[in-house]
């Protein structure tokens, strides 16, 4: 995945400009910066959900996006809410259970999604994303609301994904402890002028 000379405009403000990045398979990139700097907007531009104000994105491979919205039916038990995405993504039998074990949700599959805590919901969304089996991961603030053990778990998952030849872009205002993680500070591309 690579992006050239991206600029993003929200309302009449340019959040960032002339931002270029390139990530190869097996690499992970940490998009860093304080709140409101445009991390999520950049993520959505890279995902193809928003058009950049300027610049272009080139990418190959299926993408999985994890953001603050879990995209799980809140009234359904977690197991059935995840099963919907397993059907959509044609996840292999057994992989979903494996993934739920990995993120520590195996005991919660009967609980309706609306009763889950913030951290549990985050892990549920993580399970949905893992089961998708996409080579490109776009993680927007994946560590928000997670406890220390889960944070370490996510870091391990990212490391494993990259070791398997996957690609990961990770936006977070927190430090992320993954070996070999490159860091891109979006504040370096801030444009302090109005459009």
């Amino acid at each position, binding site marked *: 995945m690579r992006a050239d000379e991206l600029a993003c405009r929200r309302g009449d403000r340019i959040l960032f400009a002339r931002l270029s990045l390139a990530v190869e398979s097996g690499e992970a990139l940490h998009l860093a910066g304080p709140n409101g700097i445009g991390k999520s907007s950049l993520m*959505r531009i890279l*995902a*193809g*959900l*928003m*058009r950049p104000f300027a610049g272009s994105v080139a990418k190959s491979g*299926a*993408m*999985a*996006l994890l*953001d603050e*919205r*879990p*995209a*799980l*039916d*809140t*009234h*359904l038990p977690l197991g059935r809410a995840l099963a*919907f*995405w397993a*059907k*959509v*993504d*044609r996840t292999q039998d057994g992989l979903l259970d494996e993934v739920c074990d990995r993120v520590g949700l195996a005991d919660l599959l009967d609980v309706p999604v*609306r009763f889950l805590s913030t951290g549990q919901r985050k892990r549920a969304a993580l399970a949905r994303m893992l089961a998708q089996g996409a080579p490109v991961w776009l993680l927007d603030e994946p560590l928000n609301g997670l406890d220390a053990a889960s944070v370490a778990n996510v870091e391990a998952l990212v490391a494993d994904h990259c070791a398997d030849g996957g690609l990961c872009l990770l936006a977070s205002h927190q430090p992320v402890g993954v070996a070999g993680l490159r860091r891109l500070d979006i504040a370096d591309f801030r444009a302090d002028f109005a459009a």
Partner: protein
Amino acid sequence: MIWAIFRRDLALLLGGGRRGGALLPILFFLAVAMLYPFAVGPDAQLLARTGGGVVWVAALLAAILPLDRLIEPDLELGFFDQWALRGLAEEATCAIRILAHWLSFAVPLMLAAPLAAGLLGLSGGQLLTLELGLLAGTPGLAALGVAVAAVTAGLRGGAALAGLLILPLSVPLLIFGAGSLSTGGEGGLALTAAASLVLVAAAPFAAGAAIRAARE
């Protein structure tokens, strides 16, 4: 993939969950049909002459009720983003939703129509024309509902605005649909179907564009 999405849409719209079910609009529809004789009196001739139009008005009003749960909840939860990420066009997901909405709203409505016709003292012939008119008109109404719900999703007071938007846009369906009852003619039904077809053809594109615009 499409089958799974359709099944979820249908299950969501038919009932269950926190979003209310398909039953509420139907009860509302029957309540309007039941109230009308109380308001205008039990004159059987007057009821039979005006009853068909009342059923159409009741159907349009009932169509407003499910609008706020057609698109907005899934937009908020990120479902549409996830589908887009998997290469599904918004037009496709909206077309699926139109079909699911029609099945969960219009089919029960047509099943309830004989009951409403009985309450208003419509004749068998009128009931047949009414049912054919609803069959021709409700696909357009369902399509319009999804498009309007997509346009107003995420707006403050979106639900009220959706109701205001859908009523004038559904006037052609009402005129031709209810008109077919008084003339008893097939011309009215054909025109209802034509208006309905235009709406069904255009709505997925309007709804898809609205969902994309809501992301910006």
